[in-house]
């Protein structure tokens, strides 16, 4: 119950100290599987940010004006998932029409985002923490940017380690998990400045 938190604190905290993937461990699947190459990782990061902002706004509206008045809080998981799936579809159509270049660059990532749990996580946190509209919007935007920052950084590091000589047993997932752990520690280092939750 913290409706009075400054939306900008939420924004910065969700990029760094409350990073979706590094402190909440959401969206891990694509975070690990699509972080081999900086270029694609960054592309996916952009797409996730875009979809997070859109779905947070849409889910906020649906939750406040449909789910709450009808007393359907227990259905929020299902409702959020359908809304996310539908909005990704519409965003896809709109991007194909108006931003064909970006649409082509994101390619298959865009539809895949539907099943990124970080996106559902945002909508659920927004409800649990009782955020108002601006708080939700900046929370969505910040979390998206935070996810983008995290996956780009990981991809850049993995590109580098891919070219280095590392012990056989650590090649692949082993080293990736260690890197992610160290990254999480580094992000936590900022928790003295601002933190939410």
């Amino acid at each position: 119950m913290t409706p009075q938190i400054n939306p900008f604190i939420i924004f910065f905290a969700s990029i760094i100290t409350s990073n979706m993937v590094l402190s909440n461990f959401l969206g891990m699947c694509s975070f690990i599987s699509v972080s081999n190459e900086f270029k694609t990782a960054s592309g996916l990061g952009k797409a996730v940010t875009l979809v997070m902002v859109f779905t947070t706004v849409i889910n906020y509206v649906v939750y406040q004006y449909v789910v709450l008045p009808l007393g359907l809080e227990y259905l929020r998981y299902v409702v959020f998932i359908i809304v996310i799936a539908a909005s990704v579809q519409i965003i896809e159509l709109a991007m194909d029409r108006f931003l064909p270049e970006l649409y082509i660059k994101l390619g298959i990532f865009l539809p895949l985002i539907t099943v990124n749990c970080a996106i559902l996580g945002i909508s659920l946190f927004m409800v649990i923490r009782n955020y108002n509209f601006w708080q939700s919007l900046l929370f969505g935007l910040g979390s998206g940017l935070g996810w983008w920052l995290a996956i780009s950084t990981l991809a850049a590091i993995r590109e580098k380690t891919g070219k280095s000589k590392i012990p056989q047993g650590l090649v692949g997932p082993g080293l990736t998990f260690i890197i992610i752990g160290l990254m999480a520690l580094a992000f936590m280092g900022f928790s003295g400045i601002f933190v939410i939750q």
Partner: protein
Amino acid sequence: MKEIIITVLSITGISTVLAVLIIIAEKFLNNYGECEIDINDGDKNLRVEGGSSLLSSLAANKIFIPSACGGKATCGLCKVRVLEGAGPLLPTEEPYLSKDERNDGVRLSCQVKVKGNLRVYIPEELFNIREYVATVTNIKDMTHDIKEFRFEFKAGEDIKFKAGQYMQIETKPYDKVKEKAIRAYSISSAPSDNKAVELIIRRVPGGLCTTYMHDHIKVGDEVRMTGPYGDFYMRDDSDDYVFMAGGSGMAPIKSLVMDIMERNLDKKMIFIFGAVSKKDLYHTEFFREIERQNSNFRYVPALSRPEPDDNWNGETGLVTEVLKRYVDSGKGKHAYLCGSPGMINACVNVLVGSEFDEAKIYYDKFS
């Protein structure tokens, strides 16, 4: 009870609203109006509803571009030169296009969406491609895993193809297979036999289309097919030909040999057919008969692992070894190969080593 009803109703309601929103969005966002496709600089002008792929827009106007995967960008066959209006190259197309093709504006027509007026170039022979609904009139067992099918077209319909080209068959859903499949098979009959086509199909364990053809198709059934496709056909500018095939790869070679015989062309030919053991040989009598009638044609079946009770006294060994024994120099000769990619790659190496001009080695890889 009341809760269940409310839950079901609200989920249905929300889903319906979203579905309607998507339909509306699609109607407005995917509506590119009527677009014009100009083919070969004004040869043909099509007016189509924008929003679908170039491949399906052309197919709707009875222009069939070869495609084996049905528009999923996995076969890379549906290449078309788009001179104007295609938009940037998609990542899905990149693996299938060489640098030269990219510079020429070649695109995969299944990935190019018609969003405005297009100018495209389609090779003349693709206009011969038509859609047929053919009736199976004969099924012959050739070996334990190969059958030859004869499909007759409806009265009044005929086909114009070059020996060596192939057809694409569309299967209907069967058993647990819910989707249609489209696969390519070479024509084994002669071009003069233009009211029907014959196809030789080998059973691939677990194969969608070959299982359908081997286990589900009966005489009298109707099958939808398009064709003819392919650039594996005879070039007349040589007097000496080497044909090589393995398994169902005999199909286009049979068509080529029949075509040469019917047109009474004075060509010297040798056909080396590779098989594992005697039970994999077929049409042997057919080719022996041609050999008896025409001294220019030689048929050499070769077994790689004959069974002890095959009593085989013909050629043994891999086709590449047999090839070395029968063909000394490739100067001025053309070679036509059809079979598995492994066999073809090995044979091309041997042929290039025996002074064949690489540009005169034509092949069709069955995979």
